[in-house]
């Protein structure tokens, strides 16, 4: 049974069947035919090219030991500074970004890349969170957009805060929403640029084109 070299499941091993991904995964387990993992090393070591810490985390997050992480599993693993779990939309966006098979879930390689991605955004977030409050306020968001090169109106930042922040006297957004907003800004910009072949900052769209553009990128 090719999944067997991982023995009792590595550092978090507790699966009764002994293979890290449990019974029922079929011959070869989730990583398919004996190949990269045949004789790869001692039980619990990360697959080649994967950071050991990312690998441990992967095993912990992959609650059902399927060898893949779903939106639901990912959500439980990621926390904002106020201890809330990442929202569904952000998790979905990120899974889609790192899911090569379009199956709605990611393997250990996708997860490893996703962790690096989140760390990059986290660094940016902390940079823009000038008062280190753990969340980004209206003025910090405005500054962030400007520094990222976007020329967006204050009403737009206002709208985003109204939608995504808790209702309070000083609404601010958490890391998950910040990532979501920035990812959507990027996709929308890419979609627009694709049509704006003359680089004039203006595109003429039919209703159907408009819907297609948005639906395929934002949904």
């Amino acid at each position, binding site marked *: 049974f090719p999944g067997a070299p991982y023995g009792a499941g590595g550092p978090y091993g507790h699966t009764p069947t002994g293979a890290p991904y449990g019974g029922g995964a079929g011959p070869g387990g989730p990583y398919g035919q004996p190949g990269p993992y045949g004789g790869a090393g001692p039980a619990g070591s990360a697959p080649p090219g994967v950071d050991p810490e990312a690998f441990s985390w992967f095993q912990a997050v992959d609650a059902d030991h399927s060898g893949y992480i779903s939106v639901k599993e990912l959500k439980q693993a990621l926390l904002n500074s106020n201890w809330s779990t990442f*929202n569904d939309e952000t998790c979905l966006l990120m899974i889609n970004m790192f899911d090569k098979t379009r199956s709605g879930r990611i393997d250990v390689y996708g997860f490893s890349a996703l962790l690096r991605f989140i760390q990059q955004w986290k660094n940016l977030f902390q940079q823009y969170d000038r008062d280190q409050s753990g969340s980004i306020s209206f003025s910090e968001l405005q500054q962030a957009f400007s520094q990222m090169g976007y020329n967006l109106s204050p009403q*737009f930042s206002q709208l985003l805060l*109204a939608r995504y922040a808790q209702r309070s006297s000083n609404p601010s957004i958490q890391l998950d929403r910040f990532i979501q907003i920035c990812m959507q800004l990027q996709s929308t910009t890419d979609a*627009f640029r694709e049509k704006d072949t003359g680089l004039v900052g203006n595109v003429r769209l*039919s*209703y*159907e084109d408009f819907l297609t553009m948005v*639906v*395929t990128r934002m*949904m």
Partner: protein
Amino acid sequence: MAFPGPQVPGGGFYQGGYGGAPGGPAFPGQAQDPLYGYFAAVAGQDGQIDADELQRCLTQSGIAGAYKPFNLETCRLMISMLDRDMSGTLGFNEFKELWAVVNGWKQHFLSFDNDRSGTVDRQELEKALMNMGFRLSPQAVTAITRRYSTHGKITFDDYIACCVKLRALTECFRRRDTSQQGFVNFQYDDFIQCVMSI
């Protein structure tokens, strides 16, 4: 050109009154309006409701019927669909408008959910959207059905979320198509704001 929209009681493309009403009754009979009861029960002094309050309000009004009530993200989407002053909240008039629109969509869903399973399949979703008048390219349909189906089925809540998004996008486009030709010239920042405010 005619834009698609949900069919509501009375038929035709939906044109509601826009703008929220302040807290108290604004017209005779409003206080007797059963919807006002649900609304007032959750709205604060400002006469506005946010996504959490909307979720409670809709659950209590029983609009979802036998279906599971709406999740918070869907409620957030519903607010953004009607939130013209970009406040992130709805007043009573906007809430009434929402209620009528959602009811229309629900009737539509019911007509497809023959076995009352609370879900429809991809082909049924496609048919429902076409019936509502949304002209979608094959890629758009694929993207939508992929996004909203779980194991090939689409739940009532996800169906509503999908309708809200499509309608909001349609409104967004329609408001800019002043000559009603079905074409809009978008400036970059307007495009971003339009799309991301959905």
